[in-house]
């Protein structure tokens, strides 16, 4: 009886050892299959700041600091265009290598995040972000930036800025799936900010003027 139980136990253990890596792999594959990105149609943005306010409210962004912001550019013909900006969740993020404690990291879904418990507040990542998208949070004493509202994604919700945009200028989704984002990215010419940094940013723009790319 005792030996039979032991055999059964060993069978179950070996079976679970086989199954466990498979389940982990499938979970990782699912994560890797979701490469989150955003598309911003500059022609649709009229600078209402709803996204900026929604982001600040959702993420408790300190006054004077911005996880997302809107730049205004006056064209030669006197008209204005508005360019929303934020962390680009780059494929090759320059902000990660300088971090001495591995606090800044990249997830399988392509998000570039910060572990507040590991961040010592040295500011190295802020200095190495070409887009000025990071800042030191004076309340928490750590580096801060856009997370694509990771906490909302976990519940199947859209990032706060996307949800708040009244004109649909921001489109969010996974590049690995068939959706509005991939349909536009595949069919229309898109631009990214500062391509010369080789950071492979994952915020795509439609109708981005050349002057912005500084």
């Amino acid at each position, binding site marked *: 009886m005792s030996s039979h139980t032991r055999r059964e136990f060993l069978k179950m253990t070996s079976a679970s050892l086989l199954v466990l890596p498979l389940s982990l792999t499938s979970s990782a594959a699912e994560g890797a299959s979701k490469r989150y990105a955003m598309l911003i149609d500059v022609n649709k943005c009229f600078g209402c700041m709803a996204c900026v306010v929604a982001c600040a409210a959702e993420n408790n962004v300190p006054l*004077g*600091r*911005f996880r997302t*912001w809107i730049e205004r550019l006056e064209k030669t013909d006197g008209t204005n265009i508005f360019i929303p900006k934020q962390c680009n969740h780059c494929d*090759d*993020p*320059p902000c*990660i*290598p*300088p*971090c*001495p*404690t*591995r*606090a*800044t*990291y*990249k*997830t399988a879904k392509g998000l570039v995040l910060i572990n507040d*418990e*590991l*961040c*010592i*507040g*040295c*500011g*190295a990542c*802020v*200095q*190495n*972000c*070409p*887009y*000025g*998208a*990071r*800042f*030191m949070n004076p309340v928490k*004493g*750590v580096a801060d930036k856009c997370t694509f509202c990771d906490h909302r994604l976990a519940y199947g919700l859209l990032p706060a800025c996307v949800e708040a945009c009244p004109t649909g200028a921001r489109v969010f989704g996974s590049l690995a799936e068939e959706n509005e984002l991939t349909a536009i990215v595949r069919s229309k010419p898109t631009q990214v900010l500062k391509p010369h*940094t080789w950071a492979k940013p994952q915020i795509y723009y439609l109708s981005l003027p050349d002057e912005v790319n*500084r």
Partner: protein
Amino acid sequence: MLPGYYFPNEAAEPLLWHPVLFAYTLLISGADLLILASLAYLFGSLRRAIPLMTMLGIGFFAVVLLGPLADLRSVHRAPLILTSAHIAPTPTNPGLSLIALQTYAWVIALVLSIGFAVLMFSYYSHQASLTATGVRKTVYQLFSLGIITPEKYRRAKLAAKAIAVAMLPPLTLWGIYPASMLLTQTWNPVWRGWPLLPVIYFADTFVVATAVFIFVYYIWKLKALEHDTLLPILKIHAAGSFSVAALTGLQVAFWWLSSPFMAEMVTPLLPLMYAVIGLLLLSFFLSLLSIRYLQANIAVSLVALAGTLTNKWNILINGQLISKTGLAFLELELHGPWVLETVAPVAAGIALFILLSIVFPLGEGA
């Protein structure tokens, strides 16, 4: 703030790395004093200068991390640099952090430097323990490492030479570390476009190291200055000063020739760069003069220190105020007792040096 295009998060905190870090870049000269001491020990030259260089070097190098620690926003998590160090790339953490790498290099270099100094002074410590009383006797007995005969001291000297060789790589890394970091791990358009920065920094730390040595030596010896001790130091200083002045001039020329955008962007840095070139050339000529008139070396030291202070301020503080867009120069805002904060790490280094100079005889030849 000058008109121009900059990012809003830059406006919120134009100076991310505060002047206390500027003190840290000066204290790195301690690493160069230790490089000089180890090279002199290995080649059997500058025997009378080695103890002073070693103790000054250890005094400065031991406190070098106080500046960066003071600048951390969450300093209570600082030990994570050692326990969660980003010194190897992984899929979630690509690349490696120069800050983490240099923290380990600091630990290694400091332990080796202390070992080098203790071995160098071991026989003296034994002799001192014979006449000392109380706590001093225990301290000297500890530092003698049981080296109580000339024969054992000869072996200790061999060990000290081996340590002197081992010290060189981590100390050299420290000599170029801040500049390497500014050049490769920041996206400041000026630092990124300053390819000569590591060379300038390396040469500059020799200028600071020798200037500090000359200053301390002058105060210590006053009118009993020894030509044989000072001459090689003055030669190194002259070479360093001229190199930094020439390299700075070369960098300015490079910017002018590279692009009109770059030339315009660096305009706010140029007045102090010209001042640096002038001061270091003056220090170079004064060094040559001091070789003949030894009493003039205090002027060499003061002029060089003024030049290097200006240089470090310009690179670290003014450089940082140039926006990542390259199109604006942000206004400098300093808060709180920043002067005291900046001076404190240097003062700690001086205090440690004084303590070491009480325990170990700086007048002993190595």
